[in-house]
């Protein structure tokens, strides 16, 4: 049985009248877990509670069985890479990572710092001040500082933000190799492709609630098999509506002055039948636009499911 690195039990957190996290229960084991959700979903708050930076307003958070808030010993096992770009800019990468290593009580600081910097491939610039770094390089420096004591649980808040595709690939490879060594990694993102690229397990948060959790393939199926709404503009909306109405994937139609709204269970089937129907009715299509492809719509569907 694998160790439960992180456990949320009915965790809620509110700030005044605002509920940031609402009754979340979940467990994290070694491997990569993606925390997916739109901006403002409560992902950062959840990670901060896991890192012991915030106490929950209700419920319990446990890191390797301990309450992380106010317990500095927890940081032997846990590291947080925050989303905020701010780093002590006047320090060099090496000074920054060395300071973290010393504060974490590592015995052989120099070797640990060498390894951490090598792991993020910043050896060549390790004596440069962080203030002159690009966002991607700062992200790697923060990661080196987080990994210097080889924590068993690594929490990353939007680690791919601002990275170019090459840096993103490097970061993914790094996280995967870290996970292969038995580390539990939790990272937040609002981009599904990032999460399903490396996460073996996904937690979906919407409006502070856990909307879905499980294997990313299952989540993808849920997201693609949901009903879709398509807006159409054509030379004859009424005729087009009557031609589409009999198709089995169409579950709803509404006709406005210049807009035909179609709800379908299978978006791909509609894309095949639509040109055929338009041709048969001698109808010109001006616009075909999915109305609910934003992440917010996808997540809302998952919540209502």
């Amino acid at each position, binding site marked *: 049985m694998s160790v439960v690195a992180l456990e949320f039990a009915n965790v809620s957190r509110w700030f005044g009248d605002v509920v940031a996290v609402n009754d979340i229960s979940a467990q994290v084991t070694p491997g990569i877990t993606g925390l997916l959700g739109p901006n403002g979903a409560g992902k950062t708050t959840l990670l*901060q509670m896991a890192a012991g930076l915030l106490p929950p307003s209700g419920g319990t958070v446990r890191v390797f069985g301990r309450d992380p808030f106010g317990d500095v010993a927890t940081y032997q096992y846990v590291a947080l890479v925050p989303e905020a770009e*701010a780093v002590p800019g006047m320090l060099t990468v090496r000074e920054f990572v060395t300071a973290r290593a*010393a504060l974490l009580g*590592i015995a052989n600081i120099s070797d640990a710092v060498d390894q951490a910097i090598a792991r993020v491939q910043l050896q060549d610039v390790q004596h440069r001040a962080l203030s002159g770094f690009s966002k991607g390089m700062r992200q790697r420096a923060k990661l080196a500082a987080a990994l210097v004591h*080889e924590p068993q649980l690594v929490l990353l808040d939007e680690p791919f933000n601002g990275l170019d595709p090459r840096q993103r690939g490097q970061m993914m490879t790094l996280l995967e190799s870290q996970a292969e060594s038995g580390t539990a990694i939790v990272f937040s993102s609002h981009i599904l492709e990032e999460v399903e690229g490396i996460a073996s397990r996904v937690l979906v948060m919407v409006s502070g609630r856990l909307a879905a959790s499980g294997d990313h393939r299952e989540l993808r199926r849920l997201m693609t098999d949901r009903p879709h709404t398509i807006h159409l503009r054509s030379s004859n909306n009424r005729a087009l509506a009557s031609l589409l109405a009999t198709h089995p994937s169409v579950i709803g139609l509404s006709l406005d002055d210049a807009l035909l709204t179609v709800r379908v269970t299978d978006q791909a089937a509609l894309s095949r039948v639509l040109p055929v129907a338009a041709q048969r009715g001698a109808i010109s299509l001006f616009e075909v636009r999915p109305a609910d492809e934003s992440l917010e719509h996808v997540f809302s569907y998952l919540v209502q499911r």
Partner: protein
Amino acid sequence: MNNIVARVADAALARSAPSTILASAQGRVAARVRAIVKLSMARTVRTVPLSIGLLIAALPLVFAALFQSSSTGDPAALSSFLMTRYESLVITLLLPLAALLTAAGATSAEREDGTLLYLLTTTTSRPLIIAVRWILATVLTSVLVLASVIGTALIAGNGSDSTGVMRAFAMGSVAGAAVYSALFLAMAVWVRRSLLVGLLYVLVWEGTIAGNFPAVRFLSARQVTLGMTESFLPEAERGAALFSSAPGATASMIWAAAVTVLALVLAAWRLTRMPVQRGR
């Protein structure tokens, strides 16, 4: 039950621990202290605050040069000059502002931009962080204040301290630096925008209210510092008007020690239980 789970997890982690073994806390205290000092100095010793500090520290020296140029060599006049300038420029202005910048500057800036978590998400105990930051702020403030106090006496009195005023104010300022540093460090941990709040405390509370209302003189670090300074003066120099609002020597010492300890304890406690979010 949770303790059992924690012990099991600890054992599992210990088995899988890599070669970078976590050292015993005692063995790594020196490295931790150096790291705290490094992070603090990087935020404290910066161009703007340093320039402000040096500018204020130089003010008494300018006055001393002017005094010396017209001095008749009268020890009483020298003593009066030094006490007046030390009180108005060093104790009232330089000491609290230097302590504010050195004690609250780093923590305040780290809270604002969120980098405080790089210090707090570590196994270093919060009381150690507070203790190191307090000692560092006290030392930095003392260096600046002592340079100003000694420099002023050297210029105004041609290097002599026959009246013992310089020595008394030097000792009083160092004691005051410890009190102010503890207060402002606690303020930085407890209050947002602590530099502004600290400035208001120095200018409004100490500058006007505490100086004019003897009943609240114990709530003023400046009055307590003056009380301690007077106790360091030779008998003949005591009782000057500038000490009229200050508490007595013993009361000042007790209050200074109590306020310092209380501020440090509260700061360490708060740092242990402080929610850390950017700008909070």
